């Protein structure tokens, strides 16, 4: 579960960074990782990962693929993959994501909606937008943290000497050769033994379309959802 560590280790490349003294208010959209050390208010839509560092404050409705919160978030987060509140993370608002991780020390008030994911059959059964597997991408950040799925496809019963060929298993991406050796417990971070996990489930924009293109209207106010007691309204700033 080294997601937070991996991400922050590899994020210094050429991502967007909002420095500690910077305040952005309005609507921010993008297709790259964003690291917030300052403050972002309004609305935030990314197709990649949002990292809120300990000095960072995000007072916005957030739609991202992954979010790692070590600072403060007030507003709702909708993530297609995962949300992690680290030891220093503080958040008031609702989280909607198939994977939600709250680490000891984090504080949170609001609702969590992971959908009705069954652990163990997460990665491949979903209608996934197939993204090229991480290896095939000529990316300059090989350690790009497509957070390794800790959820294994159900392991064959450990007692069986030779597991039958797994017919029900979804076909892995062509680039991946799955080891045929029986793995007794393939889960639990044992991903190191596999060459590569199947591409993580990427889903197209679930709910909250948040018209990306950025029309000219101002940011909508952040309304913290029902689960949270505190209601926050961002001052509307139109240009």
């Amino acid at each position: 579960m080294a997601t937070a560590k991996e991400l922050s280790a590899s994020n210094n490349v050429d991502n967007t960074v909002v420095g500690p003294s910077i305040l952005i208010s309005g609507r921010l959209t993008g297709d790259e990782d964003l690291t917030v050390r300052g403050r972002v208010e309004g609305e935030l839509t990314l197709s990649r990962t949002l990292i809120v560092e300990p000095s960072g404050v995000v007072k916005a409705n957030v739609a991202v693929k992954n979010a790692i919160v070590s600072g403060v978030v007030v507003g709702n987060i909708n993530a297609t993959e995962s949300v992690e509140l680290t030891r220093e993370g503080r958040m008031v608002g609702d989280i909607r994501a198939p994977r939600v991780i709250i680490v000891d020390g984090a504080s949170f008030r609001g609702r969590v909606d992971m959908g009705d994911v069954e652990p163990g059959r997460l990665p491949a059964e979903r209608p996934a937008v197939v993204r090229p597997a991480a290896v095939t991408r000529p990316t300059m950040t090989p350690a790009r943290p497509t957070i390794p799925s800790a959820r294994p496809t159900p392991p064959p019963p450990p007692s069986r000497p030779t597991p039958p060929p797994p017919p029900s298993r979804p076909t892995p991406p062509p680039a991946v050769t799955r080891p045929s050796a029986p793995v007794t417990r393939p889960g639990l971070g044992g991903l190191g033994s596999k060459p590569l996990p199947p591409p993580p489930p990427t889903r197209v924009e679930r709910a909250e379309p948040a018209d990306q293109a950025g029309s000219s209207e101002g940011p909508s106010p952040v309304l913290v959802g029902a689960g949270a007691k505190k209601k926050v309204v961002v001052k509307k700033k139109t240009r």
Partner: protein
Amino acid sequence: MANTVIGSSIVIDGEISGDEDLVIQGTVKGKISLKESLYVEGSGVVEADIETQNVEIAGRVTGNIVASDKVELKTDCRVVGDIKAPRILIADGASFKGNVDMDMKER
């Protein structure tokens, strides 16, 4: 990486303010007010009024610029708007349309 960088795929519609350098490779619409330097790189597109100490523009800017120190328009930049600053540099190859006002009393 001390500076704030707005990457090339990022679009911001709103206001940016702060006390540190800002590098724009993406798109910013709205307003920018900084106490330090602003760099609009070749890929950067700014449709905003800008208030800062220094600006270096290699990309596109539409909007009025007020700088307390210097405005530098680099080769291949395209700037439309009025510029007010004590020092203004326009490089060969820059394209600029607007008024220039170098008569600043303060600083």
